[in-house]
């Protein structure tokens, strides 16, 4: 497999806090890659650097062969890196349809209605098109967030704690949905729920204090004594 996103020595410090500290990381095309680590390990900051929400102080990011280190976020989105927010970020006063249509039309206006419906169908929100997004149940809002990400037809979908606040039954549905995305879409998943991580991920990277502690298959990570000490063993 070829690597789709590759970072080299990626760094972002906030004053004395080394949020991301020299991270070498590669995301292989078609995998579900989980990013785990204790609170404050730098997971969200790291994916913010990938998506362009924050700019790196040093190091490089490549998408395929292209250096995207200095590209603004909206250009990276157009190049195929979609980010779904940790804290649900939708357009609360717009309808469900308009929320997804905004993502769809960013890719071109052709067959807006059909493509929007397709994205809604994929997450199971058909029938709620005309509802104001803020009136949706929380689980549905998470699905709407996901539908917006999918509607971008991304090459890489970054999911930042997607199962947070979901009920167990909803998590099952979510797992099946993510599995159905690969290998067309590559998934980078930040997740605290270890069951979800171990079920879904083909590879796992563990961050600790802004640095990569380990990378490997779920079995390798489970067996890694450093990881157990820093995180799993707790």
């Amino acid at each position, binding site marked *: 497999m070829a690597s789709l996103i590759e970072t080299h020595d990626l760094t972002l410090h906030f004053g004395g806090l080394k949020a991301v500290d020299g991270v070498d990381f590669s995301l292989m095309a078609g995998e579900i890659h989980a990013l785990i680590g204790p609170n404050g390990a730098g997971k969200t900051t790291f994916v913010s650097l990938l*998506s362009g*929400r924050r700019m790196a102080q040093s190091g490089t990011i490549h998408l395929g062969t292209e250096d995207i280190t200095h590209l*603004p*976020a*909206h250009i990276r*989105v*157009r190049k195929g890196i*979609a*980010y779904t*927010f940790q804290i649900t*970020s*939708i*357009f*609360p*006063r*717009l309808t469900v349809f*308009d929320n997804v*249509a*905004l*993502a769809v*039309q*960013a*890719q071109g*206006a052709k067959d*807006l209605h059909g493509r929007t419906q397709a994205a809604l169908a994929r997450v199971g929100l058909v029938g709620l098109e005309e509802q104001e997004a803020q009136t949706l149940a929380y689980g549905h809002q998470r699905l709407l967030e996901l539908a*917006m990400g999918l509607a*971008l037809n991304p090459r890489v979908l970054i999911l930042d704690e997607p199962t947070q606040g979901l009920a167990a039954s909803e998590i099952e549905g979510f797992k099946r949905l993510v599995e159905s995305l690969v290998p067309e879409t590559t998934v980078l998943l930040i997740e605290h729920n270890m069951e979800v991580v171990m079920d879904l991920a083909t590879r796992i990277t563990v961050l600790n204090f802004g640095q990569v502690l380990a990378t490997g298959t779920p079995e390798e990570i489970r067996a890694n004594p450093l990881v157990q000490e820093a995180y799993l063993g707790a």
Partner: protein
Amino acid sequence: MKVWALHLVLIAVLFAAQFLLSPYHTTNLARIMVLAVFAMGYNLAFGYTGLLSLGHALLLGAGMYAAGLSAQLWGFSAGPALIVGTVAGGVMAAAVGLLALRTAGVSFMIVTLMFAQAGYLTILYFAPTTGGDEGFTLAAASRTFAGFDLSTDTPRFFAALALFALGLLVSLALVRSPFGRTMVAMRENEERSRMLGYNPFAVKLAALTISGLYAGAAGAAYALLFGYVGASFTTIQYSILPMLYVLLGGAGTTIGPLLGAALMFALIEAASGLTTAYLFLVGLALVVLVLFAPKGILGTIRERWLKWLP
């Protein structure tokens, strides 16, 4: 369908009003329609895109002076002068936007206010050309369009109506287009929009420029239809008024600006008959609105009853 029908009926009603109203009220309605064009432009920036500008008087003034001076100095007739004024409003908005849109929120308000004040002072500074505080009146020759004398009641009314109708239908088409949805996205959640691949700066600049085209057209039309160009139109008062019209009628509704302009016009007229401190009543209206009906008349109607209202 229903939506377009509603707007066409509104235009038809305004058309009919000309035959029912006295000349005095016809002239006032023409004035209201021109001010409503200004307010519709303000609404596209503020009501739909969420750009709270306090400097739209500058854009109105740009249109008014560009049209007035090109008529005065180079003998432009009404058609070309209107085009020059419209373009001037758009260009001014784009220029201000390039700088002001680096800020947001309160800073954006202050920066736009500052630009407008600088514009006002510039007009006073170049008094030999602009007429300074007193302004200037337009010669009758430049107030003709296709053989019609715009200083007479009927042609003036129809010119105002034509401009208003065009502005209204363009604004309706715009807000129902994908770009209209993008403008609203900026207002509702800019960061999310960015992460959907939109460049917020470019979208806001485009919206502000369109808003400037409206303001420029309104300023030019005001000069050509009522024959006077003056610095008073570039004062802070004319930055606040479109905001009041929009807030009263309903921000983010297509017809709200006309409704707000008409009601506020009537209020100011009634109040100035009673007291010279009529601006006090305007201020009071703003406070009451913000406290009790933040969505304005049509915004409230849409929320409660007519969900389909654009």
